[in-house]
């Protein structure tokens, strides 16, 4: 198919061009990383806090509205069942989001002087996603709860 002058035929040229384009597309898929946390990075953030300990479901109650119209300010309440005594209390509560640009949301540290283990705040949600709350107890155990939230208007995207 190659003529005497050595220039490629139309078919060869198209094949080569198509291959190159596919290569570029593939490379860009590999190179471009999403600027948001994925479940994997959230797991990494959780591992950083929890270490090798086991996180059991229960004892924690994470309250978030199931349907959110505006992700810029979403009320969040975490409560943990604990007598909050010197020997048995909640040391810390951590909140993680799987699809925000960063997985960490808030970490609160308390002790027996809190009296009641809980915190309320308002968070941003960049997308429809799962939010996880993990409580660290004074005996070293970890407990968690999760909430699925549907977001209509995402935070972080609007122009200032």
């Amino acid at each position, binding site marked *: 198919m190659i003529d005497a002058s050595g220039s490629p035929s139309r078919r060869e040229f198209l094949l080569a061009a198509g291959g190159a384009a596919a290569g570029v597309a593939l490379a860009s898929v590999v190179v471009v990383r999403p600027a948001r946390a994925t479940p994997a990075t959230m797991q990494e953030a959780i591992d950083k806090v929890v270490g090798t300990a086991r996180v059991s479901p229960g004892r924690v109650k994470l309250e978030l509205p199931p349907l959110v119209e505006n992700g810029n300010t979403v009320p969040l309440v975490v409560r943990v069942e604990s007598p909050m005594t010197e020997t048995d209390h909640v040391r810390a509560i951590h909140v993680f*989001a799987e699809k925000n640009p960063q997985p960490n949301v808030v*970490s609160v540290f308390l002790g027996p002087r809190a009296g009641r283990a809980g915190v309320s705040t308002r968070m941003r949600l960049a997308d429809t996603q799962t939010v996880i709350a993990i409580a660290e107890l004074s005996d070293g155990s970890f407990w968690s709860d999760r909430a699925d939230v549907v977001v209509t208007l995402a935070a972080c995207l609007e122009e200032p």
Partner: protein
Amino acid sequence: MASALIRVPERARRGEVVEIRALIGHPMETGYRRTQQGERIPRDIIRLFTCTYNGTEVFRAELHPAIAANPFIAFWTVATESGTIALHWTGDNGFTATESAAIVVE
């Protein structure tokens, strides 16, 4: 000086668990937004919130960009003695704010 709004009960019985609410005016700029010219707006958030009861720390929160603008935090503490409950916020660009309230425990 940022405007902070706090709610601490004026009186409480000894041993009573009281709720403390704190709201402060702050943009909590995430560092992920861009201007219309495409320039990234630098991060400007409150990183740390602490509550001290007569000088002893009873509550601490580490905030991340996922906390909404004008951070609101509510938590509980045991009214142990009369005195001062002070709330401190510290953040990027040298931001600090302190607000305190007196509590009478009987």
